[in-house]
């Protein structure tokens, strides 16, 4: 009786292991991002998750998603910027605060990275897309994307030196 019950359990375990091995879910990088413009048909300024998995760049929001193969990306450029700490409708309303309080709130800003790509679709048409993400996330994503077949006009090493010098200039200003 015992070998009879052990055999199905063994088969079940083996098949489960084989199924897990067959799933191509190798997410190499993932970050929260805002799609500013241009990534497929996703609406401008949509918050979501930008991830790199199975050689493709995916953007997923609560309503929409879009994917581009890494080898269709012909340029990747990273940069940095700042944005108002208080965002959204509350941020807009706060700009009209009394006695200049809205202006004071505008001084509180957070650093962000910009991530810009250019890619071609199946018809050869050129698309450009811009994302913003928390500071320090764009360069590792670029490196991963390049390792999976994307192209870039400026190598990552140059970007990192440029970025640091730009930050230096920004801080000086």
């Amino acid at each position: 009786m015992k070998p009879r019950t052990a055999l199905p359990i063994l088969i079940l375990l083996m098949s489960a292991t084989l199924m897990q091995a067959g799933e191509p879910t190798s997410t190499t990088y993932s970050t929260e991002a805002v799609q500013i413009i241009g990534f497929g048909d996703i609406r401008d300024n949509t918050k979501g998750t930008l991830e790199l998995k199975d050689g493709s760049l995916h953007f997923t929001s609560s309503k929409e998603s879009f994917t581009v193969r890494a080898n269709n990306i012909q340029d990747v450029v990273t940069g940095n910027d700042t944005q108002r700490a208080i965002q959204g409708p509350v941020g807009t309303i706060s700009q009209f605060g009394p006695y200049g309080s809205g202006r004071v709130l505008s001084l509180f800003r957070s650093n962000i990275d910009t991530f810009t790509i250019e890619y071609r679709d199946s018809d050869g048409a050129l698309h450009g897309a811009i994302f913003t993400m928390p500071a320090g996330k764009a360069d590792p994503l670029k490196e991963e994307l390049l390792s999976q077949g994307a192209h870039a006009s400026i190598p990552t090493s140059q970007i990192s030196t440029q970025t640091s010098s730009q930050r230096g200039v920004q801080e000086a200003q």
Partner: protein
Amino acid sequence: MKLRNTYFILLITIAGLLGIAPLHAAPSSAGTPKAKTSIEIDMVGVEDVSVPEEFQVSLYENLLQQMNKRSDFDVVYRDGDRNAQSKDNLLLMHSTITGFRKGSERDRQVTTVKGATKIMVHCQFTDKQGRVLLQRDIEGKVLFFGNNLKATEDFAKKAARAADDALSVYQANPEHRGGA
């Protein structure tokens, strides 16, 4: 009584014919229907100025959005789209950034008078044979509200109007439409 009714019906019929006739006549007086014209937008180039990549991409993408939204073109093609090559009535738009001043959103919000972002783009519209239809320098700017990339949206709205002017030039000139 019968005669009155007949007159009344006759009067209504005449009035109706007079009122409706001009409505029917209007389309025929508009002339021949316009041939459907498409446009291909080239990627925005840069000339002797340092411009961040995101501004170039934002200009290009906003141009496409505004052209689709506002202009009278049949189809708006992206740079390099193979489907555009088979079109006979096709205009091409080449844009080059000639001036750029990156302002500061913080300065705009704090002072309201400082920190404007301005971008100057030279736009050229040609037909498929390369004959220039219209050239215009268009400025995009953000003076008060919004981030720096808002200047590219301002430019794109103005460029869509310029594209309609180029389309008028193209359609007014049979030499261009003939494609010879």
